[in-house]
C-alpha cells in the first residue's frame, strides 16, 4: 500500500508541478524575451536586414504572446509592491510593439529607432521586475 502510494506520488508530482507552472516570474521573463525580440526586429528592419512581411508577422505574433502573458498575470499571484508595476510594464510592452508595427508599415526609420530604444528600456524594466519577483 505504501509503495503504491509512493508510485502514485511520483506519477502525479510532475503533473502538479506542470499545473503550477504559470508563475509570474516565468511570465515576466517571457515578456522580457518579447521586448528583446521587438528591439532586435526594429534594429534589423531599420537597416533593411529583414523583410517587412517577416517583421510585421513577428510583431503581430509578439503582441498575441504578450497579451497572453497579460491575461495570465493574476493580481493575487503578485506581491503587493509589484501588483501595479508588473501589469503596467506588460501593457506598455504591448503598446511599444504596436507602435513598432506602425513604424514598420510607414517605413519610418526614425520611429523604428525610437521603438528600439523604448523596447530596450522596457526590457531592462522587465528584467528588474523579474529579479524582484524571484526575491519575493
Amino acid at each position, binding site marked *: 500500500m505504501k509503495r503504491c502510494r509512493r508510485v502514485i506520488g511520483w506519477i502525479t508530482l510532475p503533473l502538479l508541478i506542470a499545473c503550477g507552472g504559470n508563475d509570474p516570474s516565468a511570465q515576466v521573463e517571457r515578456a522580457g*524575451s518579447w521586448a528583446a525580440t521587438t528591439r532586435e526586429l526594429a534594429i534589423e528592419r531599420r537597416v533593411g536586414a*529583414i*523583410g517587412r*512581411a517577416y517583421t510585421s508577422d513577428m510583431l503581430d505574433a509578439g503582441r498575441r504572446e504578450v497579451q497572453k502573458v497579460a491575461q495570465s498575470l493574476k493580481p493575487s499571484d503578485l506581491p503587493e509592491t509589484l501588483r501595479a508595476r508588473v501589469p503596467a510594464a506588460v501593457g506598455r510592452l504591448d503598446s511599444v510593439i504596436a507602435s513598432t508595427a506602425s513604424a514598420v508599415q510607414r517605413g519610418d526609420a526614425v520611429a523604428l529607432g525610437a521603438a528600439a530604444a523604448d523596447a530596450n528600456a522596457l526590457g531592462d524594466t522587465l528584467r528588474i521586475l523579474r529579479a524582484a519577483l524571484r526575491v519575493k
Partner: protein
Amino acid sequence: MKRILDLTLGIVTSIGGFLEAGSIITAVQAGAVFGYKLLWTIALGTLGLMLLVEQSGRLAAVTGRTVGDALRERFGINFFIIPLVTGLLVSFLVLASEIGGVSLALQMATGISFQWWAMPVAFAGWFLLWKGNFGVVEKGSSLLGLVTIVFIVAALKLHPDWGRVGAGLLPTSPDHDGPRYWYLAVSIIGASISPYLYMFYSSGAVEDGWGTDDLSTNKATAVIGMSFGGVLSAAVLIIAALVFLPRGIQVDRYEQAGLLLPPVLGHTGFVLFLASLGIACFGATTEITLAMAYLLAQGLGWDWSENAKPKQNARFSLMYTVTILLAGVVMAAGIDPLKLTNFSMMLTAASLPVTVIPMFVLMNDEALVGEHRNRWFSNAALGVLSIVTIVVLFSAVPLQILGGS
C-alpha cells in the same frame, strides 16, 4: 571515382537529416537559454548516429539487407511490428514538422501563412519522389544543402571563446531551470539520432548495390558525413549562444530563429537562413517519406526501389504518396510547428531503444554478418548508447511535462 560519389550518401544524410527542423530549433533554444552548456548533447548525438550509421551501412554492404529486412528476418514479424509501428508513428510526426519547417521558411519570405504552404510543399516533395530517382533525391539535397555552411561561417565570424566552447562539450548540470535543460538535452539527442536516418542510409546502400568492397567507404561516410552534420548543429547552437542569450531572446515561436543570422551577416544572413531552413527541411521531407515507405515495404515484403518506375512498385509508391500528403494535411490544419517539432523530437528520443538494442543482436550475429560482426569497441559503444536510450525512454514523459512548456 565511385568511392567519392558514394561519400555523398553520407554527406546527404547528414545535411538532409542531421540539420533539419528539429536539430535547428533545439540547438537555437539550447543556445538561447543555456549558452554552450548543451554542446555535449550534440557531440553525444553525433557519436551515436555515427555508430548506428556505420553499423547499418556495414549490415547492408555485407548482407545486402536493410536494417528493416534484417530485423524482420532475425526476430520475426511479431517482434518487427513494434519497431515498424513506432518508427512509422514517430517518423510521421517528424515528417509533418519538416513540412512545417519548409512552410515557415516560405512564410518568413512572403508573409503568407505556413498553413497555405503546407500542401504545395507536400506536393513538391511527392513530385520529386514520383518523377525522380534515388540519385536525384540524394544529389539534389547534397548540392543545395551546402548553403547550410553559412552557420559555420557566421559562428566563426562571431569569434566564440573556444575554451568555453570546449568546456561545453563536457556534460555539466545546469545552474538554473533544470527541467528545461534536461528536456532540451533529450530533444537534441532525439533530433540527432533519428531512426529514419539510419533506416534511410541502409536502404540507400542497398539501392546503390553496396558490397564488402564498400566497407571502407561506409566507415568514411559515417565518420565524415555525420561529423559534418554535428559541426553544423553545434554552429547553430554557438550562434544562438552569442546572439540570443546576451540579448535575452528566448524562443517561443519558430520564426524567432529568423533573427539568428541578420546581426552577423545582415540581409544576406536573413536570406541564407531562410534558404538553409527551407532546403534542409525539404531534403529531410523527401528522405523521411522514402524511409517510411522503405520500412513498410521491407516489413511487409513488398517490392521497393526509388530507382524503379512508380507503377513497378505500386504499393511502395502509394505508401509515400499517402504519407507525404497526410503529413501536409496535418500542417495545413494549423498545428504550431514549434510545439510539434519539440514533441516529435522528444518522442523520437523515447523510441530509440526499439531500434538501437536489436542492432546489438544483429551486429553480433555471426550467421548474419560473419567476420564483419562487431568488435569489442563497437559493442562497448553500442552498449553505452543503449543505456542512454533506456534512460531517455523513462525520462521522456516527465521531462515533456516539466520542461516542455
